[in-house]
């Protein structure tokens, strides 16, 4: 059934649109964007008066934990969390068990997505077999099966030689390498940022230089190969500077930042806060300011949650033994609205771009805009909605968040995938309806090959 979204302020940064427009989705695709579209008989009408309609939000960095770690999260719970957070698509990392390092695992992930997902799922394949950093995966085969990018996330691509090969090979396939940039000889086994806090707490710490060194290696190799490089979860001011400089030289590098890194600093770990351990770690206030500056000037094109759910019992241990990572799908949009838009750092359009046009361009996805003909994925925002973060109410199985109890202004109000409302809390209570039409299947929206 066609869906008509009425009364919203429509912001589509990719098309330079910001104004009072209605939006009609028909046959799973954007059919019309216009002032005051009259409803026809048979149209479903979504009253979005007072709200903002944007292209469907894409979280390009999540851990769905399936296959292998379904006790932490699975495709269903993870994508329900995504929908609840306002996302219409996620890209899921390869560090599952077994690792997504072959087309059969990729196909399995997509099969589960077709069965159970509440939003689109774009698999990311591993760079190296088993993420062991030894030999490349069958990237062409995995690309054909649906992988949109390659990454050994959780750890950096192990050697410069392997990174060079990966960039060359993935470049040939038209997809980027996403790197978790840390020099492991500096950061391996270290649990937080090095500075006054780590000195006071006596925790093993790594310096921001650890990230800068690996980012520099990667940038030089992107320049050497001419291939596209994406730096995951940038945390250091040094890395932002290197990436800015590389972009000025027209080297093909992009990067993302997580909401926890632009919101928090290593101060958060005072008292051995078990909800504040991640890799790379929360860094200094100067680094946090540099991340916001990078978002402002466009050096950082994407915001991604690095949603990393963990099992409760694994969190009942001393700080050193804790797993790295926090959940983020259900707080990312609110943190961006509260901490970036309401604080005056970004305009609403800039912030929307980091969740839409930014990641769509990086991963070569057809979404990211509301141009007529693109998949009908829409995120509806209520920028003024105030609420308190209650981890117990998360759709995700993970409750590991440093934002427990935080009061935030701004929240996703609805998520629409291929014209189907998969999440709606416009009238208050959150309703999630996972099924979306087969003709708007999970792989739609993935680019068919070369971008640009």
């Amino acid at each position, binding site marked *: 059934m066609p869906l008509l979204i009425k009364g919203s302020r429509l912001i589509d940064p990719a098309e330079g649109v910001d104004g009072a427009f209605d939006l009609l989705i028909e046959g799973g695709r954007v059919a019309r964007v216009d002032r005051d579209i009259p409803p026809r008989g048979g149209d479903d009408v979504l009253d979005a008066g007072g709200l903002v309609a944007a292209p469907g939000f894409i979280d390009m960095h999540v851990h769905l934990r399936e296959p292998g770690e379904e006790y932490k999260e699975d495709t269903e719970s993870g994508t329900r969390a995504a929908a609840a957070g306002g996302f219409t698509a996620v890209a899921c990392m390869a560090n599952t068990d077994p690792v997504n390092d072959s087309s059969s695992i990729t196909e399995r992930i997509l099969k589960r997505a077709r069965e159970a997902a509440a939003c689109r799922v774009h698999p990311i394949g591993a760079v190296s077999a088993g993420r062991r950093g030894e030999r490349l995966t069958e990237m062409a085969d995995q690309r054909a099966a649906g992988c949109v990018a390659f990454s050994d996330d959780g750890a950096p691509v192990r050697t410069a030689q392997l990174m060079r090969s990966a960039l060359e090979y993935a470049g040939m396939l038209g997809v980027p390498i996403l790197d978790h940039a840390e020099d492991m000889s500096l950061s391996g086994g270290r649990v937080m940022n*090095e*500075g*006054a806090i*780590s*000195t*006071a*707490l*006596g*925790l*093993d*710490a790594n*310096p921001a230089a650890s990230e800068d060194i690996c980012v520099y290696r990667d940038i030089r190799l992107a320049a050497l190969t001419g291939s596209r490089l994406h730096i995951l979860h940038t945390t250091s001011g040094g890395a932002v500077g290197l990436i800015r400089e590389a972009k000025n030289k027209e080297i093909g590098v992009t990067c993302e930042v997580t909401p926890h890194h632009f919101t928090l600093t290593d101060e958060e770990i005072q*008292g*051995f806060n*078990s909800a504040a351990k991640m890799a790379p770690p929360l860094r200094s206030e100067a680094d946090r300011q540099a991340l916001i500056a990078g978002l402002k000037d466009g050096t950082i094109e994407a915001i991604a949650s690095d949603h990393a759910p963990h099992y409760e*019992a694994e969190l*009942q*241990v*001393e*700080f*050193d*033994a804790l797993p790295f990572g926090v959940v983020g799908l259900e707080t990312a949009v609110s943190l961006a609205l509260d901490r970036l838009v309401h604080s005056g750092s970004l305009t609403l359009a800039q912030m929307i771009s980091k969740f839409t046009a930014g990641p769509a361009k990086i991963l070569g996805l057809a979404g990211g805009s509301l141009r007529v003909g693109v998949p009908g994925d829409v995120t509806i925002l209520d920028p003024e909605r105030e609420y308190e973060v209650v981890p117990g109410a998360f759709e995700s199985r993970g409750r590991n968040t440093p934002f427990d109890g935080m009061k935030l202004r701004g929240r996703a109000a609805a998520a629409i995938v291929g014209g189907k409302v998969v999440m709606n809390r416009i009238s208050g209570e959150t309703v999630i309806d996972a099924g979306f039409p087969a003709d708007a299947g999970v792989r739609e929206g993935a680019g068919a090959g070369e971008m640009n």
Partner: protein
Amino acid sequence: MKPEPFHRKDLLSIRGLSPGEILFLLEITDSFREVNEREIKKVPSLRGKTVVNLFFEPSTRTRTSFEIAGKRLSADVINISAAVSAAQKGETLRDTARNIEAMATDVVVVRHPASGAPAYLARELRCGVVNAGDGCHEHPTQALLDLYTIREHKKEFGGLHVSIVGDIARSRVARSNIVALAKLGAEVMICGPRTMLPAEAESLGARVTTRVEEAIEWSDVLMALRIQLERGGGAAFPSAREYANTYGINRKRLQGAKPDLLIMHPGPINRGVEMSPDVADGPFSVILEQVEYGVACRMGILYLLAGQRNATGAADAAEDDSGTEAAGEGADEARKPGVENAVAH
């Protein structure tokens, strides 16, 4: 600065204490010291109480000190070492500790290789938790006995120059002492090779030098830290020989020292590495006094934490303990817990 009553469930760090609380803990150490000098070195203060030493790292001195302290207070003291505990069978720290607590333990004394492990347990357990050394974080009872030893000889902390020489970055003893001394008005200098100084070392509130001669000349008190040979040095220092040559405290280096310099070491000493035998056994050394006062200091801590559960008003506990000394005497008594009270019955 005046002593302030200590009413905490746990002793986790020096950083979390007020200067007054630290002074109070030194006072209570004073009152228990006398017990250790008696013919019959035992008081019934913690009769019927259970203290568990839960050690996830090897330790002789600290564990023995807590054990003797507990026994001299008549508590039942049980030692559990991690090598034989459930930790290696995949049980979480939380479960291990909660099992121990379920056996009606009053105080758990924890040593753990991970910074913050005692703080984590303190949040999870209702019983008292004493940090007996956690990772590179803190070793509060060591700092308290060090402070007590210093005060015995130097009387006042205000303006006193105390230097700490060694692997500051990896030393929980150094962290606790730096913070404690600063809270009491002493000046602290930390000294070691750059590879053994923590990031932003000045943020700890200490002067920083890499020249051991500078530290020696400046000091009224000098603490040398154990160089952890078992850590293999790695990137932190080239060899024990190089360390001894450049930072070892020996008689020759002490020629520039003040005549009443106090020499301390938390032990165990690597003789000939961080300190030469003639200095360790020499006239300025108070190393064995540190050990002696350690027992009294820990008696005070155990007394407060095991007794506090009554004093702070767990009604059932107070009833159950009606037969034991100090129990139910209330917070006012706990504030002035001298041995007179502890042995009143």
